[in-house]
C-alpha cells in the first residue's frame, strides 16, 4: 500500500513538474512583452563659430526612458576628420565602461543589427557605453574639440540601447543617416581664420 502511495506521489509530482516547466510557465513568460529600453539624448555645442586654434565643447546628456536594458551607447562621430588624436579630448565621462575609440577602417556594426551586419568605418568616432541600464538612469559625456582646419566642422551624435527590439531603442528616430546606416543628430561649427 505504502509503495503505491509513493509511486502515486512521484507520478503526480513529476507530471506537475513537466507540465509547469514545459507548458504552463513558458506560455506565461512568452506572453509577456520583451523589454524595450528607449534612449533619449540631448547634445549641445558650446559655440557655433570659433577661430582656428580655439576649442569648443560638445556636451551630451543621455537617459534610458524605457524599460531595463543591457547596454546604453552614445556615439559621437567626426565625419570631417581622419583621426581624433590631438583634436578630440574627453573632458568628463560617467558611463560605466571605458569609451571605445573607433578609427577609420575599423569593422563596426551597422543598421542596429547588434553586430550581425557590419561595415567599415569611414571616419573616426567615440562610443560611450554603460551596461546594464536601469530605467531613468542618466549619463553625461563632455568632449573638448580643437579643429585643426578651416571651414565647417561636423559632429554626428546618436544613442542606441540594446536589446534593440524596435525603432524606440534608438535616438534620433529620423533624419540623416551615418556610415552605419543609423540616424544621427548633426551639429556644425564654423572654424574661421
Amino acid at each position, binding site marked *: 500500500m505504502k*509503495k503505491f502511495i*509513493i509511486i502515486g*506521489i*512521484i507520478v503526480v*509530482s*513529476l507530471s*506537475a*513538474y513537466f507540465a*509547469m*516547466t*514545459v507548458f504552463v*510557465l*513558458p506560455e506565461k*513568460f*512568452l506572453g509577456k512583452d*520583451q*523589454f524595450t529600453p528607449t534612449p533619449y539624448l540631448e547634445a549641445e555645442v558650446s559655440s557655433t563659430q570659433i577661430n582656428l586654434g580655439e576649442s569648443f565643447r560638445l556636451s551630451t546628456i543621455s537617459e534610458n526612458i524605457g524599460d*531595463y*536594458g*543591457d*547596454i546604453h551607447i552614445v556615439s559621437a562621430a567626426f565625419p570631417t576628420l581622419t583621426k581624433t588624436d590631438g583634436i578630440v579630448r574627453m573632458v568628463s565621462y560617467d558611463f*560605466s*565602461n*571605458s569609451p571605445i575609440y573607433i578609427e577609420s577602417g575599423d569593422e563596426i556594426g551597422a543598421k542596429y*543589427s*547588434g*553586430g*550581425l551586419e557590419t561595415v567599415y568605418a569611414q571616419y573616426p568616432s567615440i562610443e560611450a557605453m554603460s*551596461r*546594464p541600464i*536601469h530605467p531613468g538612469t542618466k549619463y553625461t559625456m563632455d568632449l573638448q574639440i580643437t579643429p585643426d582646419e578651416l571651414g565647417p566642422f561636423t559632429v554626428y551624435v546618436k544613442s542606441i540601447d*540594446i*536589446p534593440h527590439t524596435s525603432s524606440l531603442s534608438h535616438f534620433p528616430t529620423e533624419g540623416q543617416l551615418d556610415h552605419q546606416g543609423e540616424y544621427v543628430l548633426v551639429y556644425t561649427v564654423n572654424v574661421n581664420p
Partner: protein
Amino acid sequence: MEIRQTQFHSSLQKNSPKIFLIGSILASLGILLVTVGGSWDITNHLLNKPESFFSPPHALMYSGVAIGLIGAAISFLGYRNLQESKDVFRLPLQLKFIGIFLLVGAGPFDYVWHSNFGLDGLLSPPHFTLLGGMLFCSLGGMFGISRFLKTRELKNNFANYLLVLATLPVWLAGSGVISSLSLPFSNTDYFEFNPEPTFAFVIATVAYPFFISLICIVTAKLSNFKPGVITILGGLFLLIYGMTAIVPNFALLESVEFYSMNMIPIVMADLIVSFRKTKKVSFVAGGILGSGFYMVYYPYIMYTYNEFLLGKLVSPSMIYHTYFELMPQVIQFTIIPAVIMGVIGALVAFRFSNKILVKN
C-alpha cells in the same frame, strides 16, 4: 622542552586522521568558493563586461584558492603523521596537490593572459587550468572526507552534511568544465575558442544529465541512501546557481519561480532512493534527475542550444524569451538521451562510489 615536543608530536600523530579531515574540508570549502565565484564571474562578464582583472568575483575565487591551498597543506601535515591507513589517504592527497598546483598556477597565468590579450572568454588556457585545478582539488576533498567517514564508520547527520560539502564542489566544478566546452562564450578579439555548435549540442545533451545523476546518486550511495541527502545537495546547487546566474540579472528575476520548480525531481529522486535502497531504483532516480537538465542549467544552457537551433543574437535581458522559445525543440531532441544518460550516470555512480571508498 624535549618532553613537550614529544607530547606535541604524539598528539599530532593521534589526531592526524582528524587533521587530514580538516584539510579535506578546507579544500572542498575553498573549491566551493572558487566555483561560486566562477559562476558569478560568468554573469558579471555577461552583464557588466568588467574591464579589469580585479573584480569581486575574482576576489572570491582567489580567496577560495587560498583556502584550498591551506587545506592541502593541512592535509599534508595530517598525512605525514598518520600511523595507519596511509594508503587510504594517499590518493586524496595526490588529487589535492595536483589540483592546488593547477589552481595556484592559473592565477598568474590568467593575469598574464589578461595583460597580453585583454579579457579572455570562458574557455581559454588559464581558465581551463583553473577548471582542471578545481576538479582535481574538489575530488581530493571528496575522496578525503568520504574515506575518513568510512574508516570511522560515522553515519550521523553531521557525516551526511560533510558528504554534501564533499560532493557539491565536484558537481559545480564538473558543471564548469561541461559549460566551458559547450557555451559559446569563448571568442575574443584574439582567439576563437567557441566550441563548434553541433559538438556543443552533443556535449551538453550527454554530459549535463549524466553528471547530475552521477553526483546525486554517488552522494546518496555514500550516505547509505539517507533520506534528505539528495534534497539538500540539489537544493544547495539550485540555490548557488540561482543566486549567481539568475538573481544578478534584473531581467531574469521573475523566472526564479520557474527555476525553483527544479526542486520537484530532486525531492522525488531522493524519495525513490531512500524508499528502496536498491541499484535498480537508483537507475529510475538517475533517469528522473537527468531528464530535468535543461531546466536545472537554466539560463545559460540556452546559449548552447540557440547556437545550434536558432543562431539568434541574444542579449542578457532576452535570455528567458529565447530559452522558452527553444523549450519544445530542445525537449523533443534531448529528453530520451537525457533519461538514458541519467540512468548511465546512476550506473557509473555505483562503481565510482565503490572506488571512492576502496583504497586507491
